[in-house]
């Protein structure tokens, strides 16, 4: 598993490197001291795992994640910002407090490993989870739990359980990365998660309407209707 260490303090990077020296299956392929460096490195080296400090010059670890097109597994490392990390609602990521306890590190790595094995079964280049920051809150959202993605100008509104966070990307750009077996473009503005469809009805205007579980009714555009029928009959 390829990992990058991102921390602005050289001793902290050295310390983590030393701690990871005993873990044979983690290979450190790079170190970055700020988020500019880190962003370039992540794009070019495509690591599987980031060890990410939160307070850094030029932007925080959260800033880095919102900038990344493809977010790898993340383990946050922090001296005193655990409250910031705890604000996350998903256990899909972990955090380590500095000075790092080797036992806690091993625990976090085990979790990452099992998540990685899960991910390896999926076809490549399909977005599994997405990092969203809306206002003061951050989430790692597994896309399979998102029922609906609606375009709002240059943003995407995600329907994820009771939350409706806003993602700062265009719908068309994200669509290419979505699992085509799960997500379907219903109309110009909306993409639906097929797993969330409760039933489909023929409306008075002759169009199909998909009723989402615990969600709204979404109209399937005429152009997409044929494709949709084909997909649903499989």
């Amino acid at each position, binding site marked *: 598993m390829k990992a990058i260490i991102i921390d602005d303090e050289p*001793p902290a990077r050295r310390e983590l490197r030393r701690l990871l020296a005993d873990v044979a299956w983690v290979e450190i392929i790079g170190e970055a*001291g700020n988020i500019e460096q880190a962003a370039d490195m992540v794009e070019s080296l495509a690591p599987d795992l980031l060890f990410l400090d939160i307070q850094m010059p030029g932007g925080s670890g959260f800033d880095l994640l919102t900038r990344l097109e493809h977010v790898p597994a993340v383990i946050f490392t922090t*001296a*005193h910002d655990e409250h910031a990390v705890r604000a996350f609602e998903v256990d899909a990521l972990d955090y380590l*407090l500095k000075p790092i306890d080797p036992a806690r590190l091993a625990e976090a790595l085990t979790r990452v490993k099992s998540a990685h094995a899960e991910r390896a079964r999926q076809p490549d280049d399909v977005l599994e989870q997405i990092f969203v920051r809306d206002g003061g809150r951050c989430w790692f959202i597994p896309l399979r739990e998102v029922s609906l993605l609606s375009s709002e100008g240059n943003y995407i509104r995600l329907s994820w359980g009771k939350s409706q966070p806003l993602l700062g990307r265009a719908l068309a750009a994200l669509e290419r990365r979505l699992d085509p077996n799960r997500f379907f473009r219903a109309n110009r503005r909306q993409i639906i998660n097929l797993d969330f469809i409760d039933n489909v009805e023929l409306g008075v205007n002759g169009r199909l309407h998909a009723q989402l579980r615990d969600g709204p009714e979404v109209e399937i555009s005429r152009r997409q209707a044929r494709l949709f029928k084909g997909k649903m009959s499989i």
Partner: protein
Amino acid sequence: MNDASLPAQHTKSQQLYWILQVAGWGFYTLLRIFGAATILELPWGKSALELSLFGGVGLAVSHWLRNFAKRHGWAALSIPKLAARIAVAGFIVGIPLGIMTQLSDVSALQDPGPELKAYAPGLSAGMTVTIQTLLQITNWAVLYMIWLAIYFAAVGLREHRTVRLKQSELTRALQFAELRLLKSQLNPHFLFNALNTVRSLIADNPSLAQSAVTRLANTLRYSLSSRQDELVTLAQELGIVTDYLELESMRFEDRLRVERIVPADAASVYIPVMLLQTLVENAIKHGIAELPSGGVLRISAVLENEMLNVEIENPRPAAPSPAAGEGVGLRNARDRLRLLFGARATLDLDLSKPTVATARLRVPRRR
């Protein structure tokens, strides 16, 4: 004032009350006895006995009145309400006492009989007695009104003093609490990062790790003992700032460079404890730590006309992160200066240059 002194104070004011009561009524009675004996030439012994009796009854009634007023919380009333109650109370106790006086021999002391005869010779005997009684009643009523007025004036004065004393003590306590609260403690973020650095140095550079532990101990000790002292010399504070900066240099390595220019006369001036430390911490947090390539932190001090001028200059990012800006630390530092030195000490953060922040501290030299 603490609770233990309250009963003592209470008995003291009780004593004073009884002394004034006995002295007042005694003096009043003696005057009347003297008047009865000399001016009216009444039989000396009998009038003295009667007047003493009246004095005693007067005192008892006034004491009862006072307890009544206390029970009903008159002291808390507004002046007009209190005045109305005093007037009514005066007449209520005045009526029985007035009638009793009219029936006694000493009524002659306030007998308007001769004057009445002179002004209205045709007045019937019954009418004369009525007017005489009314006058006796009024006499007692006015006496009690004056008594109550003096009593409440004294109570009011005492209350006022107590409240003012309490207020000044409260203000002092508040200022003290405020100072304690404002005094900055070491940033936990610094502490844990320093410990992480030490952990790393133990493997990389054991002798540097030893030095780091010593410096960290110094910094912690200073921060903990800063709860006792308000003021320290600039030299003392600089000692701890140096330890702190050494630790931060180990963390940031070549990103942090430090320059210091502090002449000996400036170093002897007293400044609030942990204040320079707070400013240096801010300079690192919002300046050096925010810059990928770091920069130079400059600390300079100069003593001019008995005023100490300290400058802390650091580079900062051109577009500060949203969390930056005038923080709690700076505001607290300013409040502490105000509480300790008044308006003579100042602290300013100069952000007029786009990539430099300069904190300027001015503190008068204490004699």
